[in-house]
């Protein structure tokens, strides 16, 4: 073995330094011995004192009833762990035994870790769920509403999956006006959660999508595990675009389902929830013609009613009264004008008659003055002898007076 190979050198050391090691020398010797004799080991135990460092490395202790070992897991290795380790969780780690010289402790450099059975995965799920719930990631009042008429829908799923084909055919049938933007993603196995998170961010960062669907067909708890990982949960929570989750079957609940703004029981259902039904809209449009026509007709007839109400209203009648009154007034004025005119004419006529009588009487007076006299019977002038009646009373008018004879 290597021990033998190095034996001579170490024996030299003993001689030279009288069997005295420096701390570093003995520690390094132990380190070499340990690392070389065990190689890769698998160890089962319970996590305690789990500390994720801000550098991304993990430090924890693996223990059982009577012993414990320090463990480190570098960032590059723990990025592939598909669950969030927590104290008390039973896991199987795989790694190399090593010594950390500054502390003189031995530890396992963990390369990979797995939950010790489905029960542990389930327990990890419950713990993460409880923790995220406490943090408020599932709060109902933070959930964004899903728009009813989406223009653009983002999809995070495996583009070659049956789930994707189902979603496309649902969209085609229900609402072909929508545009689908697919970010094809690994949905199970190593790195799936990171990939899903990255694709959600990619779609979310566009800013023009109305909703993002994250989906995957049915599978075992392990198959769906990526959707139970913290990184996916936090990415969904931070996204500005509303997110619908449609993972697995009706009975499968993932952490993603709890964080998402809306949970659909299946990928198919997620697209149904994201899209309105074309037939409903077409029906609405068909009804629209009928309904709006009947509404406009009733509006028109109600205006007609208003007009006829107006016509028989007092307002309009009073208008007639006013008109009639005015006509009467006008008649009255005309009547008065006419009367006034007639009176004036009459008056002038009278004056004229008086004057003409005077003028006439002056003519007779002049003749009488010259010695002529005027014979009158029955108040009429007798101008011819043959008209004289001896039996009648006769008046003779002289210039100075009128006498009556028999």
């Amino acid at each position, binding site marked *: 073995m290597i021990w033998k190979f190095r034996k001579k050198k170490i024996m030299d050391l003993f001689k030279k330094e009288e069997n005295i090691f420096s701390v570093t020398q003995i520690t390094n010797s132990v380190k070499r011995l340990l690392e070389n004799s065990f190689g890769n080991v698998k160890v089962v135990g319970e996590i305690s004192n789990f500390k994720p460092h801000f550098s991304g490395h993990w430090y924890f202790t693996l223990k059982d009833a009577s012993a414990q070992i320090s463990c480190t897991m570098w960032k590059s290795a723990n990025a592939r762990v598909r669950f969030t380790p927590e104290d008390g969780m039973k896991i199987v780690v795989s790694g190399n035994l090593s010594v950390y010289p500054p502390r003189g402790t031995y530890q396992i450099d963990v390369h990979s870790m797995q939950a010790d059975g489905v029960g542990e995965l389930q327990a990890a799920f419950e713990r993460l769920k409880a923790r995220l719930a406490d943090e408020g990631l599932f709060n109902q009042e933070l959930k964004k509403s899903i728009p009813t008429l989406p223009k653009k829908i983002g999809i995070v799923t495996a583009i070659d999956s049956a789930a994707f084909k189902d979603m*496309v055919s649902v969209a085609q049938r229900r609402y072909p006006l929508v545009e689908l933007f697919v970010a094809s993603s690994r949905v199970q196995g190593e*790195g799936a959660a990171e990939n899903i998170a990255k694709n959600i961010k990619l779609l979310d960062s566009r800013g023009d999508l109305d909703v993002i669907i994250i989906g995957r067909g049915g599978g075992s708890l392990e198959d769906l595990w990526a959707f139970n990982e913290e990184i996916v949960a936090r990415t969904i929570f931070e996204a500005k675009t509303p997110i619908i989750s449609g993972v697995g079957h009706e009975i499968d609940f993932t952490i993603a389902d709890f964080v998402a703004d809306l949970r659909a029981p299946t990928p198919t259902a997620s697209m149904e929830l994201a899209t309105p039904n074309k037939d409903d*809209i077409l029906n609405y449009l068909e009804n629209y013609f009928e309904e709006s026509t009947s509404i406009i007709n009733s509006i028109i007839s109600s205006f007609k009613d208003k007009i006829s109400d107006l016509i028989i209203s007092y307002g309009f009648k009073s208008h007639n009264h006013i008109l009639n009154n005015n006509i009467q007034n006008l008649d009255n004025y005309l009547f008065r004008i006419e009367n006034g005119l007639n009176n004036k004419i009459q008056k002038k006529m009278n004056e004229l008659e008086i004057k003409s009588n005077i003028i006439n009487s002056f003519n007779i007076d002049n003749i009488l003055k010259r010695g002529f006299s005027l014979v009158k019977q029955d108040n009429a002038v007798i101008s011819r002898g043959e008209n004289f009646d001896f039996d009648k009373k006769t008046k003779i008018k002289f210039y100075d007076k009128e006498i009556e004879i028999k």
Partner: protein
Amino acid sequence: MSTKKKTFEDSLMRLKEISDLLEENEVGLDESIKLYEEGVKLAKECYKTLSEAQLKIKELKADLENDI
């Protein structure tokens, strides 16, 4: 972004707005008739757009180089 051309969604929203306005019966006759004409025109356009629509699918690729 099409700002000048009305999208289907905008038209459908407008249509609902118009039916509400007509049903409320608070707009005048001239306005009602204008709304009615606008609505019938929009409804015809929407009907045509939707019944002739074809699904569009685009694939986007995340920048996977940042994967560590």
